């Protein structure tokens, strides 16, 4: 058994001083396996939709609670969930999918304020935060808080009301979940820090009552996002480790081989790992 693993992972005489796992045949086998899985993954997800899928938990209630938590931490009053702003957010989401755009202003020049007015909310102040590609309410709020302009919207004293829409559809040919937050203030009077603290969590919960909430909750048995992320990270890290180990052993033993530079492969695989981190992140606008 030990001999088999050494043959597989360490450069030695039995594998011509190149770990078997990085021989051409092994790499080709793995590439074919990954391509086959990629080819069948959409069919598998459709056939076993209750078992396989991306776990999603985004709801307007959670978004409201988390938004107000951030506001309270900064000594601000809680926002109230507003039916008109909810409708405005929903209209904005529908418009983005219908006209296939991802921006505050539509290609035809429609601004967020149009949807807010259309929904019947008479604002003095208004703001909009957008997010896409996230799978949890916490991640959405954290991403907004990490962005200066979105953070300013969430922590603005000018807003007293908020509305959310969590909608899924096809944007740029890709199934996407959009989170739209419309913020509004009818009253130009700014609440002071003291009065903000006096607002209780109970009041927040009361505000949710009677307002239709928007959410997308999916909890498949196997979360394919986590599964594929762990496997992709694992494959890259594993091969980086094997190439590094091979390089060290060969350098120490001073064996001359005519193979590619392991340092090139390590750099490339490390970059691909970074690319996966980048593409797996949601974006805010």
């Amino acid at each position, binding site marked *: 058994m030990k001999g088999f693993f050494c043959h597989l992972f360490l450069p030695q005489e039995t594998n011509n001083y190149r770990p078997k796992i990085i021989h*051409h045949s092994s790499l*080709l086998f793995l*590439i074919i396996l990954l391509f086959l899985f990629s080819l069948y993954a959409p069919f598998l997800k459709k056939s076993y939709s209750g078992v396989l899928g991306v776990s999603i938990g985004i709801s307007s209630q959670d978004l409201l609670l988390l938004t107000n938590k951030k506001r309270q931490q900064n000594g601000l009053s809680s926002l109230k969930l507003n039916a008109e702003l909810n409708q405005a957010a929903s209209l904005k989401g529908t418009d983005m999918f219908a006209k296939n755009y991802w921006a505050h202003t539509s290609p035809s020049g429609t601004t967020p304020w149009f949807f807010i007015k259309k929904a019947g909310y008479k604002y003095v102040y208004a703001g909009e935060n957008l997010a896409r590609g996230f799978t949890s309410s916490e991640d959405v709020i954290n991403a907004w808080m990490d962005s200066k302009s979105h953070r300013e919207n969430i922590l603005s004293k000018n807003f007293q009301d908020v509305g959310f829409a969590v909608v899924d559809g096809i944007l740029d040919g890709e199934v996407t979940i959009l989170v739209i937050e419309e913020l509004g203030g009818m009253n130009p009077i700014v609440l002071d820090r003291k009065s903000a603290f006096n607002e209780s969590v109970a009041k927040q919960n009361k505000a949710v009552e009677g307002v239709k909430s928007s959410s997308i909750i999916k909890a498949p048995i196997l979360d*394919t*996002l986590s599964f594929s992320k762990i496997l*992709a990270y694992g494959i890259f890290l594993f091969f980086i480790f094997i190439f590094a180990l091979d390089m060290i052993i060969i350098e120490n033993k001073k064996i001359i081989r005519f193979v590619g*530079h392991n340092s*090139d492969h390590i750099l490339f695989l490390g970059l691909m790992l970074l690319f996966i981190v980048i593409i797996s992140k949601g974006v805010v606008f």
Partner: protein
Amino acid sequence: MIKHSEHHIGYYISLFLIFIFSTIIMLNFSQNKQIQASIIVLTAFSYVLFGIIHHKAMHDLTSKIVIEYILIGSLGISVVIFFITGGFLS
């Protein structure tokens, strides 16, 4: 020996610049998955090309080395495709 080192440094600087450039584009086009996918394929292609050029400059290029670079490049792309199809909503 000095000549070899210079070759290596020049090669790695070029490779680093390509990698940094592609990372910047990846970050700037975080909203466009199609552009990101194109960048991944182009980066893998550049890596294979530069690997071949590097070995050619070192006078140790063999068909096995060419295949090795192509396989590692393909492995990178196949893992990313696997992640996209497995992890995304569609």
